[in-house]
């Protein structure tokens, strides 16, 4: 077990290293450079040059890369070009908001998704199942930004039940009223972001539950004298959840990196919004930092997913 963990962590670090390297060169391959974006034409040639030097952009890319990696090993992600604050501080300010959004999405996906999936499997072929299937297909194929705007239009603009954007109504309050305010702001982005994941969770849970219910050991359970409730609870669900857990686990990892479009539409102050702003500002260090967070999250989530699946399925030996 320990050997397995060490190997997995080693492989994860390698993945992170490769991803950091790729991101480093990709952001620098973008046309234009950050200095020309922020300087006014009146600025003198010398002043521009000085700015380039202060960002370290005057050196060749290979030298920049070595310097960046050196700093990274010390835990220093650099300083934001546009905000002039350390990237770590900047990310630490945005990450909780993304995690909050993510948690809300997960709660919806796990409780509603698995619940509806099990319900559909139990009523396979009946009207309820067919309706669920239609909705799920729509959920998988719908274009999320469109859904986000639609939700915003209906609930914020027409019905005026939900706020139009942001994570709270400024100024930042405290106590219960603040939490309630955040909760109100959370609903729309969480729903918009849940749609595809929810549809996937329903689909996977339903299909694997239907497969499991045809297994011989389910018949065995009935012949033992278990009633159908016990058969579901003890024998079927644990087997049926493996594909769902795998899919949800991978989705979480990706979503820690922020849902750029959804967060931007709802002006949610998370990592996704940060990525959008940083691309516009060509803020290399912040982009690199955001993608590093995403890579780490994906690696951790895939390890956690494998551990959960191994716990669900004793046939899987952790060792490969």
């Amino acid at each position, binding site marked *: 077990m320990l050997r397995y963990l060490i190997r997995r962590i080693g492989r994860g670090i390698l993945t992170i290293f490769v991803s950091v390297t790729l991101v480093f060169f990709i952001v620098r391959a973008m046309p234009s450079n950050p200095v020309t974006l922020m300087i006014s034409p009146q600025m003198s040639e010398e002043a521009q040059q000085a700015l380039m030097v202060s960002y370290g952009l005057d050196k060749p890319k290979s030298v920049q890369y070595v310097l960046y990696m050196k700093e990274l090993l010390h835990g220093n992600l650099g300083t934001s070009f546009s905000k002039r604050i350390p990237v770590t501080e900047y990310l630490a300010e945005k990450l909780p908001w993304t995690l909050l959004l993510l948690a809300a999405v997960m709660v919806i996906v796990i409780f509603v998704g698995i619940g509806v999936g099990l319900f559909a499997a139990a009523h396979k072929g009946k009207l309820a199942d067919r309706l669920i299937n239609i909705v799920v297909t729509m959920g998988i194929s719908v274009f999320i930004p469109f859904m986000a705007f639609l939700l915003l239009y209906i609930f914020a603009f027409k019905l005026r039940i939900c706020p139009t954007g942001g994570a709270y109504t400024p100024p930042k309050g405290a106590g219960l009223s603040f939490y309630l305010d955040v909760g109100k702001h959370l609903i729309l982005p969480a729903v918009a972001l849940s749609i595809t994941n929810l549809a996937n969770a329903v689909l996977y849970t339903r299909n694997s539950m239907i497969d499991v219910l045809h297994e011989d050991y389910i018949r*065995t*359970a009935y012949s033992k004298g278990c009633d159908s409730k016990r058969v579901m609870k003890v024998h079927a669900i644990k087997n049926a959840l493996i594909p769902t857990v795998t899919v949800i686990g991978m989705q979480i990892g990706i979503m820690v990196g922020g849902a750029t479009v959804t967060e931007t539409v709802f002006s949610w102050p998370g990592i996704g919004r940060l990525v959008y702003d940083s691309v516009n500002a060509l803020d290399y260090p912040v982009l690199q930092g955001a993608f590093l967070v995403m890579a780490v999250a994906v690696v951790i989530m895939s390890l956690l997913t494998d551990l959960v699946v191994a716990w669900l399925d004793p046939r899987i030996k952790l060792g490969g």
Partner: protein
Amino acid sequence: MREEATTAAGAETADIQPILRVEHLTKLFPVKKKKLIETKRFVHAVEDVSFDVYPGETLGIVGESGSGKSTLAQTILALTPATSGEVYYDGKKITNFKVGGAGRKKLRQEMQMIFQDPYASLNPKIKVGDAIAEPMLVNGQAKSRKEAEEKAKHLLETVGLRPEVYDRYPHEFSGGQRQRIGIVRSLSVNPRLLFCDESVSALDVSVQAQILNLFNDLKKAFHLTYVFIGHDLAVIRYISDRILVMYLGKIMEIASYDDLFGENTHPYTQALVSAIPEPSTAPRTQRILLEGDIPSVVNPPKGCRFCQRCFKAQAVCFEQEPDLKEVGKGHLIRCHFAKEAE
């Protein structure tokens, strides 16, 4: 084994109540419609099957794949609902287990089934010990988990497994061991009537023999009655007192062990008997080879079910379905050419 055969045959004459009586049991599966306008069609899995099982005997049910043997057992045990017909247990009607809650528990406890595939019929996520203990706890044979565990460990020893295996998962066992676990599971609730559905078919021949001997030993130790289902007459005859031959969902013949290997039998039985391998170097004389495959169970033949493949078939066989005729004491044959009892 053979002495028991005569006692079972004797039991029949001595007017002993059958432990299980099946009357005109029929199970049809609807066929999914493919065209827009189509008459509803059915798979005739089990059709008009009637037989008795007497306490202490082993009834073998033999027939090739698709003849409805497993469906028959599952229908009797209410694992799939019967289309029509009745099942009586100890003289009481139990069709589809439509009896009160306590009565159903008792039925689930007294009638157990050992399944065909020892690999698929054990839940891979549940430790074998828990799988064995579960029916005891569900049916109230054991008051506590601890008591169930003790009983399970004791039973594991009776079938030749070490009690330490209690905490292992099914994938850690071989096919023969898994089948023993299946046997322990079914024995754990003290059943009276045990259905063995192709319980040795998935095993190697050497392991088959071990398990069959185990079945015989357990029968004596626990006073069991078996309904033993198989496609291999060589296996079935090793364990059975009486044998029921099925073909395409219908009973072709019911006979005691001795009658089945006698002169006056159904042509299908003769073909099955001639297919039993004999440990002899002498040239095989009359191996009856059946041509073709089992016909469609959606459109069964109009006359005798077996007419298309029968080597004795005459014109009448294609036109008219023969009845199940009694040709001797407890010996029934469904054939136009069976010699009737004088």
